[in-house]
């Protein structure tokens, strides 16, 4: 059954439709408090097809998260073009989900309030919003915790809540910024499997930012390797592992190991470069 879902949702790259996300020569520069100009992202080009799962990996501080803020419309690009569904990004996208790295749940809202927030903000009546929220709470396995507040939940449960909160608005674009980096290894693998399962029942295009190459390969259709900051694309790899995948097992697959070796070969220099820089900066 899972196979049926996954074969149905695959959209062949270059199937004629405009890509879901397109960045062409995008750059982002910030002015630092001391007045200098800091370039976070430089000549970054990437296109994500509809329904595709793309991961961006790169060393710390290479501007991975910046790409997400450009796509989301939270921050404008300093140069280049950013298009979502063929339209230039000028404001925060309506059909967008964003799972943040840190804990951004509202501490004063229960799981029910948190998950239904997106629908309520968009003007859905309370009763309907709660009904749909209840379905999503069940989907992420938190039934019975509707009235719990974030501080009463474990890290994994908080991430599930955040996932349900983002997915309830049925986003066409799902942006994820190292969503599982704060979780312990076991919880993390479980969450990765759960994410793939949830995603397979949607048609969302995903951009998943991580510094963990294993995670990137296990989840994605393509992996984009970035250079050390100012970040730009160093290489893009097709991940031809069959779906449905089980993150906990796929790591032992010979093809996985091959891919990992290839990509790591490329990524390693950037990681070392970034590490040397961090060291010399104290």
């Amino acid at each position, binding site marked *: 059954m899972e196979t049926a879902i996954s074969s149905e949702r695959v959209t062949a790259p270059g199937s004629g439709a405009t890509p879901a996300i397109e960045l062409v020569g995008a750059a982002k520069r910030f002015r630092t408090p001391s007045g200098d100009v800091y370039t976070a992202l430089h000549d970054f080009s990437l296109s994500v097809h509809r329904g595709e799962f793309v991961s961006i990996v790169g060393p710390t501080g290479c501007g991975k998260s910046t790409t997400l803020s450009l796509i*989301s419309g*939270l921050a404008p690009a300093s140069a280049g073009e950013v298009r979502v569904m063929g339209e230039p990004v000028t404001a*925060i996208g*309506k059909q*967008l*989900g*964003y799972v*943040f790295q*840190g804990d*951004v749940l*509202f*501490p*004063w*809202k*229960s799981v029910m309030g948190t998950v239904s*927030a*997106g629908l309520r*903000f*968009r003007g859905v009546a309370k009763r309907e919003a709660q009904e749909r929220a209840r379905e999503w709470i069940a989907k992420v396995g938190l039934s019975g915790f509707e009235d719990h*507040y*974030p*501080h*009463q939940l474990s890290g994994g449960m908080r991430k599930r809540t955040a996932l349900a*909160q*983002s997915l309830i*608005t049925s986003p066409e674009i799902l942006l994820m910024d190292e969503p599982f980096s704060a979780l312990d290894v076991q919880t993390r693998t479980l969450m990765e499997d759960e994410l793939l399962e949830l995603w397979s029942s949607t048609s969302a295009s995903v951009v998943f930012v991580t510094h963990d190459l294993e995670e990137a390969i296990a989840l994605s259709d393509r992996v984009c390797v970035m250079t050390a900051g100012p970040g730009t694309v160093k290489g893009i790899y097709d991940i031809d592992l069959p779906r449905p995948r089980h993150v906990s097992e796929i790591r032992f697959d010979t093809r996985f190991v091959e891919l990992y070796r290839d990509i790591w070969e490329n990524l390693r220099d950037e990681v070392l470069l970034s590490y040397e820089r961090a060291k010399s900066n104290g």
Partner: protein
Amino acid sequence: MASLAHAALDEGVAAARIKVRRHKQLVMVLRIAFAVVMLGSWEILSRTKTIDPFFFGRPSEIGHKIWVWATVGTPDGPLWEQVRITMEEALLGFGIGVGAGIVFGLALGRIRLLAEVLGPYIKAANSIPRVVLGSIFIIWLGLGLPSKVALAFVLVFFVVFFNAFQGVREVNEDVIANARILGANRRQVTTQVVLPSALTWIIASLHTSFGFALVGAVVGEFIGSIHGLGHLIAFAQGTFDTNGVFAAMFILAVIALGAEFLITALENRLITWRPSRRDEVAL
């Protein structure tokens, strides 16, 4: 083995509970002992004339004074009337000050331009020792209630304003970004994200600002009025009635403690989502 371990654990928990209860009892006993020692030595020192009862009063006399005020009446009329007048002034000033403080704090916290333009003026206004405004308010508004409310208001306003402003500024940027992505417009971000987030700051300011409201009302009455607890103090001072001053002080302390209790109750009601503080006990 397992059940043995359980039994041992249960015993440990029971022992810990007893420990907690004993500790609470000890604190209570020591508190009462502290009051007895302080008041007792004051009474004795005053009776033995080690300290001059004319200047320092005497607890028993202060108690008697309150009793007389409560049963017979004060020089200004019935005691309850004085309490009611002072409370009315303080509560009105407090309510208006809190409301205005929150509105201005939110507005300046959310609208950058407004903060940049008005910022220096608010700082300047805040640097004026506000008690001297009492004189101006009495000239403007007369000896009645409005001048006291105005003084309580200016004292409360700045405390609440600065806390609300800071609370708005402290809101996690990513939490706001998350709400915007979820579809919240500017107004929804303000009312449903920024305000609840700043609420802990605002409520923290209520504890201190009610005290300020009481100061405003009492000082206002002190400077110029014909009744209220502040006037009672001024009158007692004028007749060198030390016990009268202490009696009014005691009544004010009781009012302040009562208000503090109510504000804490309000805090617990409004911020139900906050993790309760757990008192950890070492087993």
